């Protein structure tokens, strides 16, 4: 079941990775195809291209007033620079998600809920690293239930170029399945802990 809280998500990486588009798809899914409110604010400077870039999305069952995110509950990092810049802001009990091949996290991050996926590698295998953002959205949808997966698929379908629709849905599914397998694995681990 999707989350009933107000959730603050920051997706961050470098220009050209489709970071803003990922945020837009998430917001679209929440507001147009699910029953929630969403606000996406954009952070960029005149030096944005190729540099750090992020999209900030608030998803809530209620009207959203303050559009800035100071301490996200969920931080998705798709570049080392973005990780370094944003990790300080993540809530202590927050969720940290990253691209396995692009970000090296520190051992001290282990108090967060952590998940990682080689999203760019997955996307390359599917034919284009341009879809890494979509793989990441699939993965995010499995590890954090922000909006219904069906809503996300609809939002992807009307956001990407028509010719790439099918490929992008495949990318989403690949990320989601990988995430589901990790979550199931985690559950087993959790259960094992309780047996001790």
């Amino acid at each position, binding site marked *: 079941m999707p989350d009933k809280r107000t959730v603050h998500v920051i997706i961050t990486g470098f220009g050209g990775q489709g970071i803003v588009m990922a945020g837009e798809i998430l917001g679209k899914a929440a507001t147009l195809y699910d029953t929630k409110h969403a606000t996406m*604010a954009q952070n960029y400077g005149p030096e944005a291209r190729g540099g750090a870039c992020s999209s900030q999305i608030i998803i809530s069952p209620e009207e959203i007033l*303050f559009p800035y995110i100071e301490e996200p509950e969920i931080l998705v990092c798709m570049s080392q620079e973005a990780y370094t810049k944003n990790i300080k802001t993540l809530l202590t009990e927050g969720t940290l998600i990253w691209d396995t091949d692009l970000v090296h996290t520190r051992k001290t991050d282990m108090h967060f809920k952590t998940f990682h996926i080689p999203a760019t590698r997955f996307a390359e295998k599917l034919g284009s690293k341009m879809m890494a953002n979509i793989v990441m959205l699939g993965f995010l949808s499995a590890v954090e239930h922000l909006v219904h997966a069906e809503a996300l698929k609809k939002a992807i379908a009307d956001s990407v170029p028509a010719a790439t629709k099918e490929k992008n849905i495949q990318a989403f599914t690949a990320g989601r399945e990988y995430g589901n397998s990790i979550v199931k694995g985690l559950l087993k681990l959790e259960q094992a802990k309780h047996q001790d």
Partner: protein
Amino acid sequence: MLAKEVKTGMHFINGDEACCEGALAAGCRFFAGYPITPATEIAEAMSRRLPELGGIYIQMEDEIASMATILGASWGGVKSMTSTSGPGFSLMMENIGLGICTETPCVVCNVQRGGPSTGLPTLVGQGDMMQARWGSHGHYEIIALSPSSPQEMFDMTILAFNLSEQYRLPVMIMADEVVGHMTERVVVPREEEIEVIDRRKPTVPPEEYNLYHADADGVAPMANCGDGYRIHVTGLTHDERGYPAMDAKSHEKMVSRLVGKIRNNKDKIIRTKNSYLDDAEVVVVSYGISARSAMQAVRDARKEGIKAGLIKLETVWPFPENLIRSLAPQVKGFLMAEINGGQMVLELERCAGGACPVGLVSNFGGAIISPGLISNAISRIRRGTA
């Protein structure tokens, strides 16, 4: 086949795009502008959408020309607009005055960023509020609106066109970087549900027509160039025929009407969104993006049992003078939240007339005001320690 002018349905779009869609829904078919952050997306959207609707998009050499061009387009009979940010708004001032003097309906959207000068191109500001009111020379009245969300960017752009057509003047949309760039759900109603007002046309035969002969509400019916009426448009002080008349008496008559058509219709023009005012002890007044922080602070205060209320200015100009005057003796104080060193607060102080304290929560730009700062100020005003 022409594309859809009203994109009925739900959209997840930013404030700038919503402004473009609102303009098109209001019947705007001419845009002249010079791209500038954070208003560029309005021009971009217009450059895509206008040609598909048979309209005209022109990228001008600068903002002086942009403003001049939309005035000309309006006299040609088409609803026109431009968009800009601080530096461009400064350049537009002279021709905004021309628009006021020649009574030319059009819309100027200023997506405000931090100033003065080039300032903070990509970051928020609300520092052009007094410039909107007094930036052109001479004495005049103005109508300016301030949206707080992409939905309001859509709704208020339609309203801006309606007011400009009704009262024959350039109407300003005083948005800001956050509202312009923020993406939210925007509901576009069905075409038949959108109220669109068009300029009044002359009903007399051409030989009896005087360009500036006003009806009872102070507004003169407007013939467009090419309609077959005699038209003489000048920025010089002019008589009812539009001919230069440069003496004190003619000037008094012309400016009285320019000022009067807004002042005398103030009650019909002014719009505020009032929340929790009935029993409010502290009333926060705010507009644009700052009004959202203010609303959060007011709701937080109410949760703690503090009787706070909010007046969100939808029209920042004219200012809701009577509302403030009537509340001032009943409340413990007013508070203005705005992203500048204190501009609309001056108007609030003037209208409160010393009947209660007036506080200011602000910064000079670059970031929006956090609700916590407003909450603290509400407590201080309530305790009388502001």
